[in-house]
C-alpha cells in the first residue's frame, strides 16, 4: 500500500567545522557552511526506503531561511519528491518550530511524519513529543525499524536498557535513531536532476520570541597536556609512566 510520508529536515551550521575562540572560548559561528543535520538524513533515508518498498510520496519540510534551498536539493537527490521551505527560522526555539511545522502538517495529507529523534547540534529532543501533542497523533520514538501495514505501523524502539516493539494506528509520528540506516550518497546524475526541481517556498505565519536570555556560551575548559608522539618509541615510555603512576 502506498503511503504519504512527510519528512522533517533540519538545516544546521556545520558544527564539526566550528571552532571556539582561543581566548574567550566563545563559538565562532560566522561564515560556517550549512548542512543537513545528521539524524535528519537518517529520517530522509527511512522515508525514501518506505516509499521504495511500498510506493507513495515523500514530502520534505524545512523550517529554515532563504539559505535552506541547498538542503532541500540534497534531500531531492536522496529521493524526496516534493519540498517546502518555510522561512522565518531565527534562533533555536523548539516550541516555535513545532508550531510552524504542526501548522503546515495539519493542512497536508499524511500517513507518517518522520523526523530525527534528537538533533546533532542541540539534542533537545523536544520536537517529536511537541508535534504529537499539537497534531493529536501518536508518537513512536527512537525507531530502528518501521513497518507499516493495514493502517497500522509497527516500530522497534530503542530504550536505554531494553528495546520494545510498539504498534499504533496511522497517521503516526515516528522519530528515528541513528542506527536505523546508513543514509545514501546520491549519484551525480540524481544531484544534477535535483538542482532543476522546483522548491516550494513560504513564509512562516507565526513569529514569537523564545524568551531565553543567553548569559554565557563558552567551550568547557580542557586543560589536557596534549603530548602527542608521532614516534611510538618515544610515546610508549611516557604513556607507560603515566599508567604506572596510577596502578602499581
Amino acid at each position, binding site marked *: 500500500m502506498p503511503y504519504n510520508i512527510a519528512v522533517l529536515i533540519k538545516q544546521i551550521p556545520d558544527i564539526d567545522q566550528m571552532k571556539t575562540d582561543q581566548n574567550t572560548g566563545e563559538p565562532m559561528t560566522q561564515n560556517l557552511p550549512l548542512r543537513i543535520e545528521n539524524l535528519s538524513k537518517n529520517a530522509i533515508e527511512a522515508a525514501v526506503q518506505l516509499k521504495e518498498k511500498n510506493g507513495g510520496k515523500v514530502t520534505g519540510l524545512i523550517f529554515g531561511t532563504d539559505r535552506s534551498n541547498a538542503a532541500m536539493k540534497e534531500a531531492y537527490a536522496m529521493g524526496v519528491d516534493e519540498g517546502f521551505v518555510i522561512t522565518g527560522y531565527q534562533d533555536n526555539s523548539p516550541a516555535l518550530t513545532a508550531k510552524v511545522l504542526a501548522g503546515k502538517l495539519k493542512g497536508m495529507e499524511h500517513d507518517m511524519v518522520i523526523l530525527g529523534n534528537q538533533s546533532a547540534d542541540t539534542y533537545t529532543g523536544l520536537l517529536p513529543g511537541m508535534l504529537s501533542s499539537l497534531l493529536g497523533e501518536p508518537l513512536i520514538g527512537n525507531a530502528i525499524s518501521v513497518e507499516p501495514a493495514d493502517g497500522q505501523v509497527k516500530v522497534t524502539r530503542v530504550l536505554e536498557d531494553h528495546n520494545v516493539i510498539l504498534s499504533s494506528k496511522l497517521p503516526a509520528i515516528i522519530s528515528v535513531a541513528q542506527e536505523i540506516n546508513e543514509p545514501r550518497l546520491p549519484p551525480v546524475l540524481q544531484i544534477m536532476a535535483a538542482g532543476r526541481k522546483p522548491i516550494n517556498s513560504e513564509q512562516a505565519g507565526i513569529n514569537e520570541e523564545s524568551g531565553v536570555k543567553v548569559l554565557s556560551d563558552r567551550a568547557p575548559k580542557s586543560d*589536557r597536556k596534549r603530548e602527542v608522539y608521532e614516534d611510538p618509541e618515544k610515546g610508549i615510555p611516557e604513556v607507560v609512566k603515566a599508567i604506572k603512576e596510577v*596502578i602499581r
Partner: protein
Amino acid sequence: MKALVYSDNVSVLQESLTYIRKMMDADGVTEAEGAGDVLNYGAGKIYSLKGDSFYDNISSAIRQIYENGSYDFIFLGSTTLGREIAGSLSASLGLQPMTELISFEPKDGKAVTRRFAHGGKTVVEEESGAKVLTLMPGIADPEPAEGASATEEVQLGDSKLSLVERIEKQATAVNLEKAEVIVCVGRGLGKKEGISEVEPLVKAVKGELAGSRPVCLDYQWLTEDRQVGLSGKKVKPKIYIALGVSGQIQHIAGMRDSKTVIAVNKDKDAPIFEEADYGIVGDLYQIVPKLVQALQS
C-alpha cells in the same frame, strides 16, 4: 517553591530528587515497579503509576497531578522517554521547556540553566521562564534523606500505542561509572576479533573494556551497556585509554571528566588528541602489544 519530578529510570529519579530537594519541596512520580526504591529521597509524596505505561498516558497523568497541585516546575529525567514526555507536556500545557540540563538554579521565579550547545563544543548558560525541564542523568550522586515519602497510586489511562514485544538487551555486570581504568575501543578496531588483541592491555592495566557508539550499537562488538558518550555512560576513571576512537564531541561528552586521557589513533589530526594528555600516532594493532610488553617489564 515546589517541583514535580518524574523519571522512568529509578536511579535518575533518585539523583534528580537529591538535586532538587536542596532548592525546593518536591513530589516524585514513577512507574509502580520502581516506586519502592525512591521513597527515601526527600519527596513529600511519591505518585506510583499503575498500568501499561507509554509516553502519552504518562504525560496525561503528570499533567493531571500538576494541574491538581501547585507546582512551580516539572522536572523529568533526560532519558528517551523523559524527553518525549517533556515535549508532549510543554506543548499541551503551553509551558516553556528546557532540556538536557547539567545544572539548574531558580532565580526570582526564573530558571538559570546550563546545557551543552553547538554539538557539545560549548556550554551555554541561559535564563528563561522554563517550567518543564529535563535533567541529565548523573546530575547528583543519589543520597537518601531522612523520613519516608507518602505514596499515592495513580491508574494510568488508555494509550494510543500498544506493546507488541519487549526485547531485553544483552548486558554484562559491568559498572563503568565506578571503574578506575577504562580501555575504550572505537570503530578503528575494524573487526570484532580485534577485541581479543586488546584484552591483554585491559588485563595489564586492570581496567574495564568500553566502546564508542558504533562499536556498541551499530556493530555490536561490545554490549550496549559498555557504550561511553552522550547517549551512553558518563565515566570518570583515573585513566581513560582510547584506541581507534576519533573523538567526536558526543563521545567526549561521556569521558571528559577522566583524570588522565591516553589516545592511540593512526590519524595525527584526529580530534581525540585535543582531548588527550598523552597521544600516540599509529596503528593500534602495533601499539597495543608494545604497550603491554612495556607495562609488564
